[in-house]
């Protein structure tokens, strides 16, 4: 039965997709395209593009898309919920553990050590996304390649965010509208 197959497949994918986003793509592709043949390779590539243009995390987008293609709305509900269920259980178990034992001194040391790693992780992501927004990719970083409008918008938004003038969602939406207007006036090709 198709819903059962979706359930089993996405439970497994949910339990084993470490590394998030692109990291778990190959595992998902091997199951969805090669083993189950629910999508062709071309369709799978298409979902990745869709995911880049729509809100929401990549893994969820793929589960939702595959589900709806294979078995309509019930399919999308089953696939998506199955995909997040293993994480739901594990995350709650680990959080419980964290709140139970975090006052222990040794655990505190480990957690404190983790904070620089978290900061560095966010920074690595910030560098990639900023390079893409300002220069069109990490390989093109140079003064001449800079997209002046994007740099200006980002800098204004950082100041507004730091001064707590706006929330993050507003910053992104405001950038979208401002950017679209500027690019339209400049007649920029997209």
């Amino acid at each position, binding site marked *: 039965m198709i819903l059962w197959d979706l359930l089993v497949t996405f439970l497994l994918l949910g*339990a084993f997709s470490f*590394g*998030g986003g692109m990291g778990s793509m190959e595992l998902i592709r091997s199951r969805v395209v090669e083993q189950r043949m629910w999508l062709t390779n071309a369709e799978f590539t*298409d979902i990745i593009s*869709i995911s*880049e*243009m*729509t*809100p*929401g*995390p*990549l*893994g*969820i987008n793929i589960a*939702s898309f595959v589900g*709806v293609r294979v078995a309509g709305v019930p399919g999308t509900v089953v696939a998506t919920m199955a*995909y997040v269920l293993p*994480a*739901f259980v*594990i*995350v*709650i178990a*680990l959080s*419980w553990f964290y*709140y139970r034992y975090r006052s222990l001194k*040794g655990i505190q040391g480990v*957690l404190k*050590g*983790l*904070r*620089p*790693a*978290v*900061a560095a*992780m*966010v*920074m*690595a*992501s*910030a560098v990639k*996304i900023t390079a*893409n*927004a300002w220069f069109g990719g990490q390989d093109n970083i140079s003064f001449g390649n800079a997209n002046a409008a994007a740099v200006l918008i*980002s800098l204004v*938004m*950082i100041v507004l*965010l730091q001064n*707590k003038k706006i*929330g*993050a*969602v507003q910053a*992104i*939406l405001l*950038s*979208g509208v401002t*950017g*679209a207007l*500027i690019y*339209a006036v400049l007649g920029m090709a*997209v």
Partner: protein
Amino acid sequence: MEKQIREPHIYRKLFTTCFMISACTFGGGMVIMSLLQKKFVEELKWISQDEMMDLIAIAQSCPGVMAVNSAIIIGYRTAGAAGAFITLIGTVLPPMIILSVISMFYRQFRDNYVIALLLKGMQAGVAAVLIHTTIMMCRNVLKDRRVFSVIMLAAAVYAAVFMGVDIILIILACGCAGGIMTFAEMKKEEGSA
């Protein structure tokens, strides 16, 4: 368990926050996580910056989608298992609805000029949010003014940004270093006492 947040309509607030963030956010887990941090740490002040960074490390070390894991963990922290379920549904629902609709109109959507312009403009905003979060987090790491923190941060940044080292390895290494440091300090205190 940490005290849960006592607040009227907490479930509704958790749901709408996660729903809005998930519906308006393009890009990966780090982006959504930055938005959650802005909302729950800086605006609502329900979670401290230290705690938030611990929770992110936990979310990162679980399988599955980082953004969803962060939402679950925040729901659990503020309103228990029911809260975790609410934030899970809030985060998952928007992409589910949007993807179901878009799977029917993909080509028209992708070729629309206005949508393409908006998406391009939003990239600059996403970059700004990430830079802002990076600044807040680095400040938090460095606030204790210890040489150890500076070295750890510099090494982690070098490995993650310039060497492209797998983030799981960096997390493991930093956790071990933190544990060893604390152990050494406890030994020293014992020695001097």
